[in-house]
């Protein structure tokens, strides 16, 4: 359609712009989470992440005046900084929650009882009193200030280091990894042999078995929850890693067999028959010829299974996580945080990002195999 006279340039522009818009729309939510995970709790709570690069004007929670008093003549004076750590610029301040923006920066305000207070633009304050202030309750200062953009790694320290156990994702990260790796490797081995038999061995009932596998591809795993939990409890596996590995293996097998069989069927017949004529056993043909040639399909399935087990919530909840919560996985941990820390976006965003980052790396590193697997795996 590029050669339709006259319509080319305008249409091409429209295509570029609409693709750019769609990509932006698709990326925007994820970028929001990513940026939020580096912002301080105060900044997340008071402004949208899209304005995180501009200066923030916000009303701060009150700060109580404190410091050592010195005597200047017959006045007692306390001087100090309201924001010792940031370069905030005060635009208005007040001493009561009803009028938090009552005064200009720099104004000297009479607080009664011979006390006066001044807060300047930089957040420095000077409080004077005619009487000794030792042991008295000092006034509160409400400020409206603009602060420069601020990014921090503190959220990650809290979520990963986690002095207090409740926010810590570190343990959940290890648990997830412990679930994922065996649950990815074992089905591949089991499925590869079965796929080879279904692809290259002749025996009665083969077509029926392939149909059986295709049918199981879409059976919802929801049906398996109660019967298998009963089975696991009955034979003594109980809830734990072994149970979840077995469950993931079972649920992953149909796709594994299907993908690998489809791939192996497409391998050239000559190679296999020549090997047979040369006296290779089926076992040798499988390990020396079929397995190395099937690497792309094995990789595709490995990525699928990895993403699926890493991101899984339901199977882990049913077969793994017991009452002690020692083995909780990251998805379940995030659900927990959504309940307990619903408004604390710095914790939520960081925890979510910690759980997302590994699959994202795998995704971008091995996208080629993922796409190939998708194309082979969708039942045509």
């Amino acid at each position: 359609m590029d050669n339709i006279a006259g319509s080319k340039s305008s249409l091409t522009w429209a295509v570029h712009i609409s693709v750019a818009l769609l990509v932006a729309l698709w990326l925007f939510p994820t970028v929001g989470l990513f940026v939020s995970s580096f912002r301080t709790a105060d900044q997340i709570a008071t402004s949208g992440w899209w304005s995180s690069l501009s200066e923030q004007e916000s009303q701060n929670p009150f700060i109580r005046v404190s410091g050592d008093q010195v005597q200047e003549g017959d006045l007692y004076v306390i001087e100090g900084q309201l924001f010792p750590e940031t370069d905030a610029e005060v635009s208005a301040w007040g001493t009561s929650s009803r009028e938090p923006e009552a005064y200009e920066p720099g104004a000297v305000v009479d607080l009664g009882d011979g006390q006066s207070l001044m807060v300047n633009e930089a957040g420095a304050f000077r409080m004077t009193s005619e009487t000794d202030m030792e042991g008295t309750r000092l006034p509160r200062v409400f400020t409206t200030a603009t602060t420069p953009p601020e990014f921090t790694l503190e959220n990650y320290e809290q979520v990963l280091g986690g002095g207090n156990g409740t926010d810590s994702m570190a343990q959940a990260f290890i648990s997830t990894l412990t679930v994922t790796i065996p649950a990815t490797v074992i089905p591949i081995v089991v499925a590869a042999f079965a796929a080879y038999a279904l692809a290259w061995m002749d025996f009665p009932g083969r077509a029926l078995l392939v149909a059986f596998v295709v049918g199981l591809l879409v059976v919802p795993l929801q049906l398996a929850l109660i019967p298998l939990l009963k089975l696991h409890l009955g034979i003594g596996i109980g809830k734990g890693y072994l149970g979840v590995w077995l469950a993931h293996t079972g649920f992953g097998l149909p796709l594994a067999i299907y993908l690998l069989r489809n791939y192996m069927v497409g391998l050239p017949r000559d190679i296999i028959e020549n090997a047979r004529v040369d006296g290779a056993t089926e076992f040798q043909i499988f390990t020396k010829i079929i397995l190395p040639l099937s690497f792309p399909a094995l990789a595709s399935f490995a990525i699928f299974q990895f993403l699926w087990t890493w991101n899984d919530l339901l199977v882990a909840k049913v077969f793994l996580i017991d009452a002690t919560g020692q083995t909780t996985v990251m998805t379940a941990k995030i659900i927990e945080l959504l309940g307990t820390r619903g408004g604390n976006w710095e914790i939520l965003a960081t925890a979510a990002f910690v759980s997302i980052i590994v699959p994202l790396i795998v995704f971008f590193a091995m996208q080629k195999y993922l796409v190939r697997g998708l194309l082979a795996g969708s039942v045509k």
Partner: protein
Amino acid sequence: MHPAIMGLLTIAVGVGGCIAYFWGSNQFLDRVLFPAKGPNAGRNINRANMIRPWLFLFPALFALSLYLAYPVFETLRLSMTDRDAGGAFIGLANYIQMADEPKFWEAMRNNMLWLIVVPALSTAFGLLVAQLTDRIGWGSVAKSLIFMPMAISFVGASVIWKLVYDARPPGTDQIGVLNALYVWFTGNDPQQWLTIPFWNNFFLMVVLIWIQTGFAMVILSAALRGIPEETVEAAIVDGANPFQIFFKIKVPQIMGTILVVWTTITIVVLKIFDIVYAMTNGQWETQVLANYMFDKLFRSNDWGVGSASAMVIMLLVTPILVWNVWNARKEMR
């Protein structure tokens, strides 16, 4: 023992065990049971080759039968028994009880909404992106970015979108982009989007559409590439405009693939659980079947009704299952 070490041990035992099984059983077959030498060598080889496929298949078939086939029948049985009465057979009583619950019908209605909206929009967006990125230089980068949500867990996506839907009290700066835009354009008070009955379903669906569009795009993009150039060129020669080419030449040729994408997403939708569980947990009339089932099984401990609702999901999947099997068998002939 630390679970990570246990994991490594399991890989070693699992993989080693599998390989030992396959190797050992093959050796046993060839050396001991039917050795390919002596007077009956020819007959023995044939016999060994009849048994070998089943050796290769046995572990997989065993796991499939135990973990997927058996549960279908066991769930069917459980759905007709009463757990409190020691598992007595009670016929369809669980189904009747379920049909009396408004929450079940709410879940059914919402599932139907999901079934209509999500596959349609995901496929449509996927087709749109596939077509648009087909001819531009940075198309593969664009596709890669739109495909990215596929790698994100449903739970992670729920957190991402909860931030989008977040609402702060009126008068303060909004940190959720949807409310920020809403307040900016209309000047109304910010809304708690996920608590508005009926419409909140659509806010949940957006999350799944966001994830599944990439999948649809990848498959449809490959299908578009597979269209024979001559058909498009012939249409250009005949003076068709780009829209006619797309809708009248390209789309009909990839109809089969569109159908595959549609049914695949339909299956995902039927099983949708995590998004609803994480974002609303079925409150504010957003219940869906899988979450209803989870509620029944693990919160009310009512295995009868829970199994009955699982059977409803199975029933909804069955037509697709039959269609897939039928197609696969046709292809094998």
